[in-house]
């Protein structure tokens, strides 16, 4: 992240209709208006007709406001909420394939334990590690593993949910 206060990463939670083409409507909107998506994660919700997108937007207040307003104009967007970082939990999941030899394997396993990550696959020359957590935690583990040689990283992008009893419903923001 850059030191510039005005430019920041913003979390948007967006409920959309679960049908073909919605993802391309949303991503197309970002590209043609010149907005930067940091990550976009999408999955179905408790209601199979509705999907939720968690979008991390890189930009200042102007950009986030424009993104939100333009997204709200899409017919397939049902509900959009900008999440307050302190009032929400965000996680991402990463799979990291790292080089491992007989001599380094034990040290890697130790680091993995410290991070409460998991070894999910092993071969003679690699270990594959699964970690979930905030973006910072994933980045910290990645940093620790660099010394052994990272062969591949796969990340899901951030998903987020509000803390406490707040939920985002298709019609109105409500507290229960």
């Amino acid at each position, binding site marked *: 992240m850059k030191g510039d206060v005005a430019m920041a990463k913003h979390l948007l939670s967006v409920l959309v209709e679960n049908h073909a083409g919605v993802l391309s409507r949303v991503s197309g909107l970002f590209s043609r208006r010149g907005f930067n998506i940091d990550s976009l994660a999408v999955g179905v919700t408790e209601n199979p007709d509705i999907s939720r997108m968690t979008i991390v937007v890189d930009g200042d207040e102007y950009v986030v406001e424009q993104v939100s307003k*333009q997204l709200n104009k899409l017919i397939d967007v049902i509900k959009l909420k900008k999440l307050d970082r302190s009032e929400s939990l965000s996680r991402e999941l990463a799979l990291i394939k790292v080089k491992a030899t007989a001599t380094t394997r034990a040290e890697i396993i130790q680091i993995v334990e410290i991070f409460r990550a998991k070894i999910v696959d092993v071969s003679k020359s690699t270990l594959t590690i699964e970690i979930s957590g905030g973006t910072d935690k994933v980045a910290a583990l990645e940093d620790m593993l660099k010394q052994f040689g990272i062969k591949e990283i796969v990340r899901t992008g951030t998903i987020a949910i509000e803390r406490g009893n707040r939920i985002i419903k298709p019609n109105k923001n409500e507290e229960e």
Partner: protein
Amino acid sequence: MKLNGSEILIECLKEQGVDIVFGFPGGQAIIIYDALYKASNDIRHILTSHEQGASHAADGYARATGKVGVCIATSGPGATNLVTGIATAYMDSVPMVAITGQVPTNLLGKDSFQEVDITGITMPITKHNYIVKDVTKLADIVREAFVIAREGRPGPVLIDICKDVTAAVTDFEHKPLKTPGKKPVDVTPEQMGEAIRVINESKKPVILSGGGVSIAGANKEVLEFSEKAEIPVATSLMGLGSFPGDHELYTGMVGMHGTRTSNLAVSESDLFIAIGARFSDRIISNVSRFAPKAKIMHIDIDPAEIGKNISVHYPMVGDIKEILGTITDSIDKKKDTDWKRKIIGWKEEFPLKYIKDSNELKPQYIIERIYELTKGDAIITTEVGQNQIWAAQYYKYTKPRQFISSGGLGTMGYGLGACIGAQLGRPDKKVINIAGDGSFRMNLTEIATAVEYKVPIIVAILNNHVLGMVRQWQELFFGGRYSSTTIDRGTDFVALAEAFGAIGIKVTKPEEVDAAVTRALSSKDVPVVIDFEIDKDEKVFPIVPPGAPIYELIDE
């Protein structure tokens, strides 16, 4: 009752009150056309020469009538030929439903003959679009498409229907039309109170009346607001006719081709009130020096327009008709303000002007004569370029939907199709397309359409044998290097018109103008093309050079 998809489509169009569609058939639309054939007593189909003409005609029809315009094309090239027309409608918030045939569902995605992903292509230029793969969903999709096209800020919607869906049979029942709900107003009492206070306190307010005022039918509300508080009114190109062009408080267009009065008024103003306008770059020019002394109030139905191109101090989102009603009821009445006197002084000092010449045919003179001879009551469509700006400047528009022009996209070739659509929608009016020879050349085959359907339009070609607006820029800003803007190709437009079966008239001298226009106006069922020979060096003034603030305009 059991109907096939094509019949369901027709029934749904009838439900929506559609009695005319513009289109061109083809293989994947053939079953739809079969249903149209059977429904020809209820829905008139206008066969254009080219799908682009159909899209512009549907657009012109929609702008002239306020109803949703409908165009139909087949898959592949038929669908892509609609694209420019859909984009034109999107930029100017025109309600349109475009229907395209598509290959059968089992051939989708296989690069089949005349297959194109038209929903993908039109995603950024439609309010919404659909591909229909299931006949049971068709009726509700068509109904929803019409609601989306006309509600809130209007715009085009495309429905792509697979051929097997147009043939498949299912149950159909008519549903009553959904009456449009009350338009939302998202203005708090605090915002309204604040707005009324700043309007009352302002000494030099200016209103910008945009295309949204005509769309919302809020022209009366703008007039009452302006008169009560004595606020001068400028319009955007799209806003022409939303305020009476002959009113003492009217200052003309603002921006790149604005009047000196409008541009000075905006630059001097302490409160700039934009109503149903979107602060296009053609209005603002240099954003940091636009209305530098003013607080900005923005009244619009589309929240995404607030703060998009300029920072707004007083946003008011919602139906402008209702918002203006409340404002006008609550503000102080003002009379004989210094500001109004100053504005009227400027209007006298800086009128639009051109060098009048009894020997030379001037485009401005032609438009002025057309204005007089039509008693200011015609609907004017335009092409794009110098012809468009002269038509905007020298005809005084007093009613909404009277000036029809591609403002946002700036589509050359738009005017002729739009003129045909507008004339079919408003048979009670004379509809005249002001064209340049460059724009006319683009879609002139639609003259054949006007002849076939006996649409008595008039095309007034301001023929300077050049692409005048670009040439003017080349002269003013590119050292007179006329790169590819001379089109002196010797085309005889009179003979061309006659070849199509239209009436062609050539005019080369000022004294011939009245007779030619009068003769054209008397034609009842034959379109007329008048070829006005004008000077290639006649320019559009005023003009604000690119990047300059609007008060630094060039007058001559």
